[in-house]
Each structure stands twice: as C-alpha cells, then as structure tokens.
C-alpha cells in the first residue's frame, strides 16, 4: 500500500495537471466541479470521517463561502481573490458558533440538527434576508478571476485555480494527520471516553474540527462561485449535503477514498447522463451494494500517522 501511494500520488498529480488540455468544454466543467467537490468532501471527511461526528449539513458552509464571495464581489466590488480570506473566515466562525451548543449531542441527533442548520440556511437565502442574497434567483454576473492584472477568464484557468485549492487542502489534510489535533481527533473518534480520560479536551477538538472543515468548505465555495460566476440557493440544498456525506462513506475516510468517492458519486452519474431516467435508480442499488461489499468504504482509512519517536520496535503487537 505504501509503495503504491508513493507512485500513485505523483501520477495522479501529473494526470490532473494536464487533464484540462485533453477535455472538451463540457468535461472541463465536470473536471472543475470534481475538484471543488473533492475539496468539500475532504472538509466533510475532517468532521465526519476523521472525528466521527455525523454532520449532514456541509453544503451550508460550502454555500456560505460561495455567497460571501458573491456578495463581496457583486455589492462591494472586491476582486474574487480578495474575497478568499473572508470566504474562509466567515464559514469557519459560523462552524465554531453553530457547533458550540450542539457537539455534545448523540450521533443521530447531531445529524438531524446539522440537516436543520442547512435547511434554515437555504430558507434564509430564498427569503432574501437583509436584501443581499438575491432571493430564489441568487446572485449572478460575478467578475471573472483576475490576479495581478492577469485576466484568468478561461475555463482552464478556473481549473487550475480549483486544482491549487485542492492541493492546498491536501497539504492541510497531510499536516493534520500527523499533528496533535489530528491525533486527538482520531483518538476521540475511536473512543471518546478514553480520549477524555487521558486529558484530551474533546469538546474543544470537536469544535476545532467543525471550524476547520467549515473554513475549507468555504474556500471551495469561492471556487464554485467563480466557476459559474453565479450562486443560487438550490446549489446548497440539504440534498447536496447528503451527497458529500455519502461520498465520504462510500469512498472511505482517506484521501484516495474521498477522491474515489467523488468520482463514483459525481463523475460516474455524469458519464451515464444519457440514461437519464434509469441512472439514479441503478445508482441507488450501487450505493447499497457498495456498502454491503465494503462497509468501511472503497478505500478505508488506515491507522492515523503516529510519529516515529512514539513507536518502539518491541511493543508492536501488544
């Protein structure tokens, strides 16, 4: 497995880097959305897979980032790049604020409350609260991407923007896996009581996971708003959260797993678009079959990284 990953990652990055030049317009758009969904799914994995909290409202943070970018760009004339910090900070703050009162809830109750947040969010957007969200139509006509006087209007530059964001996310995930918070999250997912009893403040780390996941999803939202130069409420409905939720569980809580999950749950249905009426019928069976055959996902998580100095040769099997 380790050897495979050593080769697979560079190959994956090279393929992804040259991919847009091999695709036509429609498939370029699919590839961009693949990258964006991969980032959101990875952020969902931090909350759901890595920390074991049943979050079914990730589209809320995704949408909040997209709307932050859209409103700042459309109402206040900020350039897309300049909205990025706020598009990360605002969802992250909301993630922390919303998670605060609810992280103590038992699994299924947490799931319902996060669904609730998502639905309230969409309804707020649709009812145009404060007169800045554009109601059911959303906001359209955003500026195209510009950076240091380079005009990056073409679809290929949006692709590379999304690709850079994915690489950034992978870098964060990589660092998280080996860091103290990452190990704390892993531990609290495995056994919350044991984690508490060795002095891990589970509440703080759960809220931290929500904040981090929300921030990353917000960043993905910026890319999404850029791709369509528009945002509208239905793109962030609760059903979208169900998609991200299923991606992590079908793929498995690991980076390759999540990427496979996005491919299976988003790109495959796009490929079978011709069978419009039948595809989700069969897709549903595929989801059931996937779970029966691979209950922990297609590519499940291996044990989190433990720093070398903590591993002694002689207590491996203990």
């Amino acid at each position, binding site marked *: 497995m380790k050897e495979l990953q050593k080769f697979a990652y560079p190959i994956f990055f090279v393929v992804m880097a040259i991919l847009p030049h091999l695709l036509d317009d429609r498939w370029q758009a699919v590839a961009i959305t693949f990258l964006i969904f991969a980032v959101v799914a990875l952020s969902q994995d931090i909350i759901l897979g890595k920390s074991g909290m049943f979050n079914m409202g990730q589209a809320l943070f995704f949408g909040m980032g997209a709307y932050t970018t859209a409103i700042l760009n459309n109402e206040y004339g900020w350039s897309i790049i300049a909205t990025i910090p706020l598009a990360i900070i605002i969802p992250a703050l909301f993630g922390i604020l919303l998670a605060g009162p609810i992280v103590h809830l038992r699994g*299924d109750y947490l799931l319902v409350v996060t*669904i609730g947040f998502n639905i309230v969010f969409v309804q707020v957007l649709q*009812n145009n609260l404060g007169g800045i969200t554009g109601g059911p139509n959303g906001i359209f006509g955003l500026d195209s991407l510009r950076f240091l006087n380079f005009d990056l209007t073409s679809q290929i530059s949006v692709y590379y923007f999304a690709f850079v964001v994915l690489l950034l996310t992978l870098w964060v995930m990589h660092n998280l896996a080996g860091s103290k918070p990452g190990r704390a999250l892993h531990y609290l997912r495995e056994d919350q009581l044991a984690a508490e009893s060795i002095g891990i403040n589970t509440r703080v780390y759960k809220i931290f996971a929500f904040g981090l996941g929300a921030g990353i999803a917000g960043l993905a939202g910026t890319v999404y708003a850029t791709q369509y130069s528009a945002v509208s409420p239905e793109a962030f409905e609760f059903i979208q959260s169900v998609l991200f*939720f299923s991606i992590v569980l079908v793929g498995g809580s690991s980076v390759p797993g999540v990427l496979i999950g996005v491919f299976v749950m988003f790109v495959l249905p796009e490929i079978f678009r011709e069978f419009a009426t039948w595809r989700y019928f069969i897709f549903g069976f595929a989801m*059931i079959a996937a*779970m*029966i055959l691979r*209950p922990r996902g297609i590519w499940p998580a291996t044990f989190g990284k433990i720093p070398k100095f903590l591993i002694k040769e002689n207590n491996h099997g203990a």
Partner: protein
Amino acid sequence: MDTFLQQLANGLTIGSMFALVALGYTMVYGVMRLINFAHGDMVAASAFVGLTIYTQVMGQATSLVAVIVIFLLTALVMAVVGIILERLAYRPLREAPRLSAVVSALGASLVIQNGIMLIWGPRMRIFPELVPQIYWDFDGVVISMIQVIILVLSLFLMVALYLFVEKTRIGAAIRASSIDQDAARLMGINVNSVIALIFIIGSSLGAVGGLFIGLYYRGITFNMGWQYGLYAFIAAILGGIGNIPGAMLGGMLLGLFNAFIAGYVSSTWADAFTFILLILILIVRPTGILGERVAEKV
C-alpha cells in the same frame, strides 16, 4: 379566534399524518438503531400504489367497502415492499458500522424514489376523491370530512399500536429487542422476526399516512417523500426517537406548530422555524421530549 381554531383543526390533521409516518421511523430506530431514510419514499410510493389500486383493481369505485379495500391492499403491498427492503438493504449490514447502513438507506431511498418515477412518470398525479367533499362550517371555522376521518383513524391506529406494544406478548418481544438484542435472543425471541414485524407495521402505517397525504393534498409527486419523510423524522426526533408515544406527541406538536406558523407568520418560513424549534428543544433536552436520558453506549 377564528384563525386560531381553524389552524388548530388543520394542525391536528397534519400532525396526525406526521405521527403515523413518524411511527415507522421510530419503531425501526428503536430496534435497529437505524435511520430508515427510505421510509419517506415508501410513504410517497403508497400514495401511488393506492392510486393504481383505485383505477386498475377497484374500477374507480368509491363505496365505503371499496375505500376500505384500497387501504388494506395498499398497506399489504407496502408491507411486502418493507420486508423486501429490510432483507435487501439492511439485513446484510446489521454487523457493519452504523453509518454504512445509513448510506444503504439513502441508496434505497434513491431506488424507491426513481422507481416511482419510472413506473408512474415524473409529472404530478391527482389522487382520487375517495371521500365525499363534505364541509361543516362552525362560525367561520371550516372542517372537512376528510380531516375528521384522518384524525379519528390516526388516533385509533395509534392507540391500537400502543396497546399492542404494551399489552401483548409480541409487543413485549419488540420492547425487549429494542433494549438489548442479544439478551432478547437469549430469552428465545426471534429477533429477525421482530425486525420483519417492525417493518410490516411501520410500512403499513406509513401506507395509511401516504394515502392520507393523497386524500388531503390531492397532488402527489414522485419526490414528495423527502419532504414529508423529513418532517415525520423530525417529529420522531422531537418526541425522542425510539419512543412510540414520543412519535405521536412529536407529530401532533409539529403539525400544530406548522399550522400556526403558516397561519400567523408566513408559510415561506415554516421550515426554518420548525428546525429552530427542534434545535432549541434538543439543546435543552438532548434526547427529545420523552426520550430517556441515556448515555451513548461505549
């Protein structure tokens, strides 16, 4: 005052439909610790099954006997679908991590929803007028016969279910399985049969709920299951999931709350207010109104 009484009547009607559907969620959760996301789509499917039985089997008859037969046949068909669902999508995953079963339920939901679309088409269908359109006007408060039937029949079914679960031997087996499946098995209870029975009861009650939705709202669409299912599921959570009287209480409360929001505030905010109520109640009582205060199993 008129608005109040009118919305009270509407709320009780909607609430009893929510409660019937919520019972399906709560019973399955009670025994299997599984959120059966396909239940809402089962409810939607039963409205369509009822429609087909009405046109194809009963030759569009609307006599009392015919209506009773339509209800019984629909409940029977949905009970069979429920058993198939359990065998196919949930039984293989009993020992798997809990979230795998949730994804399987989501997959089953997609299958049923798109199955309805493939069989009955994507357009809205009009549910037949099985009950004569009789209205009573009490000083401006209008109550229809459909509302009375829905309320009375729902209350009857709920009381019957409550007595069945609390007073009979089979009911005791259901309660025992929901407390501890392994211990129940050691006491000679066939847990597989109990789970099959749960799906039969839940699906038939959902079928009645689906027919009520058809009778009351008239327009039925293939994807309506998510909306009603989500509300019923909230009702179950509100009352304390796994708790049968809780689902009834939660359904009624939610129906009344929704009707009053629609009557006094605005129906465009109904969903948001409903969830805010739910979140506030869960913050104060983390396991619902009638839910037991148990620690999560470790």
